[in-house]
């Protein structure tokens, strides 16, 4: 992921004048470094607070183990167990995510093109999304069998909604003047959608795609609680039932790390493939 550039003096005309001298000063360089490593520093700081806090306040370790205990917990299991579970979750999350995109974006286009459709389909989408998975899990599992499929479907059900709603909002927010341009070219609705509304909606879409990264991981985990023999969510439940809180937390941290990486990856995709959809300061 490209780190934000600490721009050379000439490149940024909005830089206040004191910066407009030749070469960064040592102070600036320090600040730039601080900026660059701020997330890492914050993360390390957090770990230290956690470790020390747990020890000082004698937090019961079966409730919240310290980072060192979690690392020890992680080592109690072989690497292959971690990778198997990791891959099981990641696979389902990614598939659910892909399916969500493939379904939700055309759906949003349909919703944005027809008010009638919006009035009939939209409530149904809301209904589908607001069904508690746990309540409908038996139906899903029984009808879809015991493969990855029910898990992917559950992940999809959790993930697709923000994409539909946000993309629809973005497609509809397209300025009237761009629509008039399109209409004046006698382009059909499909082209208007693809060439005008969709690019305009990209900042919306990317914000939804970001939300859905973590939702897809959450969805995969929920699916594993409902039906699975592998996966980090399953492992967490499993380890908890064995009271291996350290290992459960190790899995939790792995899970959270995937989510974060996935989230950052989508952010990077936006910077690389649709930089104009970002504010200037973020490109």
């Amino acid at each position: 992921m490209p780190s934000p550039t600490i721009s050379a003096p000439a490149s940024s005309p909005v830089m206040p004048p004191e910066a407009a001298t030749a070469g960064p000063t040592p102070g600036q360089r320090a600040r730039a470094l601080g900026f660059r490593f701020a997330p890492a520093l914050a993360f390390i700081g957090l770990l230290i607070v956690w470790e020390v806090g747990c020890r000082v306040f004698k937090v019961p370790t079966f409730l919240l183990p310290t980072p060192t205990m979690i690392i020890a917990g992680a080592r109690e299991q072989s690497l292959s167990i971690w990778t198997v579970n990791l891959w099981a979750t990641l696979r389902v999350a990614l598939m659910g995510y892909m399916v969500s995109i493939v379904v939700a974006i055309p759906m949003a286009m349909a919703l944005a093109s027809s008010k009638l459709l919006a009035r009939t389909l939209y409530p149904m989408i809301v209904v589908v999304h607001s069904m508690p998975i746990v309540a409908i899990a038996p139906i899903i599992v029984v009808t879809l069998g015991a493969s990855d499929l029910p898990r992917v479907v559950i992940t999809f059900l959790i993930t697709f909604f923000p994409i539909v709603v946000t993309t629809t909002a973005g497609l509809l927010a397209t300025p009237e003047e761009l629509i008039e341009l399109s209409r004046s070219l006698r382009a059909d609705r499909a082209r208007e959608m693809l060439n005008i509304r969709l690019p305009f909606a990209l900042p919306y879409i990317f914000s939804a795609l970001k939300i859905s990264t973590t939702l897809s991981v959450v969805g995969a985990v929920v699916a594993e609680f409902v039906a699975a023999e592998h996966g980090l969510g399953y492992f967490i439940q499993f380890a908890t039932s064995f009271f291996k809180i350290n290992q459960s937390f190790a899995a939790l941290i792995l899970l959270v790390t995937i989510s974060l990486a996935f989230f950052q990856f989508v952010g990077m995709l936006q910077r690389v493939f649709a930089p104009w959809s970002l504010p200037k300061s973020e490109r």
Partner: protein
Amino acid sequence: MSDTPPVISFSGVDQVFTRDDRTTVTALKDLNFTVGRHEFVAVLGPSGCGKSTLLRLIAGLVFPTRGKVDIYGQQVVEPRDEIGIVFQRPTLLPWFNVLGNVTFPFRHKYGRVTEAEKARAHELLKLVDLEQFATSSIDQLSGGMQQRVAIARALLLDPDIMLMDEPFSALDALTRDEMSFELLRIWTERPKTVLFITHSIPEAVLLADRIIVMSPRPGAVREILDVPLPRPRSFDSLSDPRFNALANHIRSRLFARHAA
């Protein structure tokens, strides 16, 4: 050109807009006029008198409250293929660079841009003095540069009917004159029907065959004037006495705000 059927004809057109508070604004009132084939018509009128609305009526982007607008004798019920527009605002797409914006109509209408069209786009960019900015992004252009991109875009499409809404308003005097003559040259080479909205009286006189002078809101046609200057026109036309006479006449008509 009066024996050919009219390309554009307005018959008894009213345009009434409803505002948010449900009061109405009459933008256009009882418009009747025709534009002949390959005629160059300029529209002059005070700000807010309904010039842009008139253009949007021809483009099929809005529909009259009363009366009807015909193109080639057919009532306008949707945008038509043979029309190209330069909007009052440049209306560029931020996700394309300059070249992408100029070729956008082809991509949008036909889904592809040929090499020939690209080459022509580069030519047009040269014409509007932006060839160095072909790969620039839109938000790095000045106001006038954006307007020139929009002009190049409309010219590339080479439509039968060209509607231009104050296309040169953000340009300096020199560029404006240069572009005016370029437009005339293109129009002579590939004749087309042009409706040209402007606030510059000399520009209208220099370019047009006829000038529609509109009255303030509710916009109505105050007068339609023939421009007696011979074609082709050049810098010399500016010193033709008829030029100044006509310009002064229009000036007096427009400046008599409360005249009939």
